[in-house]
C-alpha cells in the first residue's frame, strides 16, 4: 500500500528536502574546494623534550588534581593527532579536564635518518628515556603508560624488557599480539608472498602510501562506502565536519622505519612471537610475563583492524596480579573518537587510570 502524506506533511517534507539540497550544494562545493575543514590538534601544549624528530608534548592545564602523569604512546604508522582531533572530540582534552597531567609522544615523520630505527630503538631507548624525562619534569616517582595500537606493542616490549622503569600501571588499547588474526596485513607477509624488505623504498623506509594501502585492503569497499555516506549526509554540517576530520587522519599515514618494519614482519607476522609472550629483542628474550604492574587491556569488539581475537590473549600473557579487560562495542578508532567514546569509553578508561594514580 502506497504511503500517502497529509498535505501539511507533504509541504514540510518538500521544504526539508529543498533546504537539504541547498545545504548539499554548499557543503559539496566547500568539500571539493577543500575549505571549511576543521582545524585539528588545538589543545594547548608545550614541547617539553625533543630528540631528532621525536617530540614529547605536555598539555597545559590549571586543573591537575591527579599527580601520577599519564603518558600516551602512539603507533608508528599514523599521526598522533588522533588523540587530539577537535575540541569536544579529543582524548588529551578529556583526560586533561579529568585532572590528569597528560603527555603524548609524537614519533615524527621518519626519513633516511630513521630508516635504521629498530624496535629496540623505540622500546629500549626512547621510551625509557621519555619516562625518565616525565618523572623528572613532574617530580613524580612513576608514570601511567597508555599505548594505542602499535604504540601498545612498543609499550609492552618496553615495560617487559626494562622492568626497573618507573611505570605505575600499563593500559593498552587495540594492541595486536596474535598476528594470525590480523588479516591480510600479516598474512601477506608469510613466506613465499611479500618479503618485508620488498616494501622498503630508497629512503630505507616503508612509504606512507604502502601503509595506507595495507589498511585499505582490510575493507576494500570502505572508501566508496565512506563517500556514499558523505553524499547521503552532505546536508548535515556536523557529519561533514566529522567526515573531513576522520578522512584527513585516515589518509594521513607516515612512513614506517624500515628496520623496525622488517623486524615486525619477521618476528610478529611470520613467527607470531608476541602471541607466545616471549620476543627476542636487544640480545635477550623479552617476556611479557615480566610485566607485573596493574594492567588494562582495552578491546574494540567491532575493531576490523585489530580484531578482538588478535588482542584478547594479552591478559593471559602478562604477569600482573591485577589484570583487567575492558571490552567495548567500538571499532579501532571509535574507542577514542566520537560521541560515544567521549560519553562512555573514555570515562571508563579514566576511571581505571585514576584508581591507579596518586592524587595531587
Amino acid at each position, binding site marked *: 500500500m502506497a504511503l500517502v502524506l497529509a498535505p501539511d506533511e507533504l509541504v514540510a517534507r518538500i521544504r526539508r528536502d529543498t533546504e537539504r539540497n541547498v545545504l548539499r550544494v554548499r557543503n559539496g562545493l566547500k568539500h571539493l574546494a577543500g575549505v571549511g575543514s576543521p582545524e585539528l590538534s588545538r589543545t594547548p601544549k608545550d614541547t617539553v623534550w625533543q630528540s*631528532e624528530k621525536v617530540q614529547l608534548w605536555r598539555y597545559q592545564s590549571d586543573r591537575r588534581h591527579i599527580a601520577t602523569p599519564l603518558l600516551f604512546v602512539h603507533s608508528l604508522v599514523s599521526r598522533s593527532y588522533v588523540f587530539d582531533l577537535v575540541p569536544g572530540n579529543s582524548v588529551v582534552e578529556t583526560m586533561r579536564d579529568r585532572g590528569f597531567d597528560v603527555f603524548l609522544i609524537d614519533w615524527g615523520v621518519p*626519513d*633516511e*635518518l*630513521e*630508516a*635504521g*630505527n629498530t624496535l*629496540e*630503538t623505540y622500546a*629500549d*631507548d626512547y621510551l*625509557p*628515556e621519555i619516562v*625518565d624525562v616525565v618523572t623528572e619534569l613532574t617530580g613524580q616517582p612513576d608514570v601511567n603508560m597508555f599505548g594505542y595500537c602499535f604504540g601498545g606493542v612498543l609499550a609492552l616490549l618496553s615495560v617487559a*624488557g*626494562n622492568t*626497573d*622503569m618507573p611505570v605505575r600501571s600499563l593500559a593498552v588499547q587495540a594492541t595486536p599480539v596474535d598476528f594470525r588474526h590480523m*588479516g*591480510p596485513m600479516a*598474512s*601477506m607477509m*608469510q613466506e*613465499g*608472498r*611479500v*618479503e618485508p624488505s*620488498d*616494501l*622498503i*623504498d*630508497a*629512503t*630505507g623506509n616503508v612509504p606512507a602510501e604502502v601503509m595506507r594501502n595495507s589498511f585499505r*585492503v582490510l*575493507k*576494500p*569497499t570502505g572508501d*566508496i*562506502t565512506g563517500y*556514499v555516506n558523505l553524499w*547521503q549526509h552532505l546536508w548535515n554540517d556536523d557529519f561533514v565536519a566529522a567526515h573531513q576530520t576522520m578522512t584527513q587522519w585516515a589518509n594521513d599515514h607516515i612512513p614506517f622505519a624500515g628496520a623496525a618494519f622488517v623486524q615486525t614482519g619477521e618476528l610478529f607476522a611470520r613467527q607470531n612471537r608476541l602471541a607466545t609472550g616471549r620476543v627476542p629483542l*636487544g*640480545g*635477550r628474550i623479552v617476556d611479557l610475563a615480566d610485566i607485573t604492574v596493574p594492567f588494562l587491556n582495552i578491546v574494540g569488539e567491532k575493531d576490523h583492524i585489530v580484531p578482538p581475537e588478535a588482542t584478547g590473549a594479552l591478559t593471559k600473557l602478562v604477569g600482573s596480579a591485577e589484570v583487567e579487560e575492558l571490552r567495548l562495542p567500538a571499532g579501532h578508532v571509535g574507542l577514542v573518537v566520537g560521541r560515544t567514546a567521549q560519553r562512555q569509553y573514555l570515562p571508563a578508561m579514566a576511571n581505571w587510570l585514576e584508581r591507579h594514580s596518586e592524587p595531587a
Partner: protein
Amino acid sequence: MIETPPWRQGYDALERQVAPRVERLVRSEPFAVAVGVMARLQRGVEAESSRFTRRVLHRLNLPAGTDVSRILNELGQLRRQVTGLTTELEDTRAELATATARDREPASKGSGRGSRTRAR
C-alpha cells in the same frame, strides 16, 4: 525513525553482495603472491632507474639522490650508535656512583637517581 533513501538501500544491497567477494579475494593466496611479485617488480624497476640516473649524474660529477639517502642512512646509524654509547656511559657512571656511595657509607641509601641500567 531514520529514513534510508531508496538509492542508499540499493547501494547497501549491492555492497553486501560485492564486499564479501572482494574481501575473500584480497585474503587469498594468489592475491598475496601477486602483491609480492608486483612489489619486487616495482623495487627492481626503481633500482634500475636509480642506477641509470646515478651513472649519468656521476659522469657529470654530481651527487645522486641515492648518494644523499645512503649518507643520511649512515648518519642515522652513527647517531644511534652515539646514543647507545652515551647511555652505556651514563649507566656505568651511575653504577660507579652507587657502588662508591655504598662503599663509603654502607648503611646509607644510594645517591642520585640510582643505577638503572638500560637494556641493550
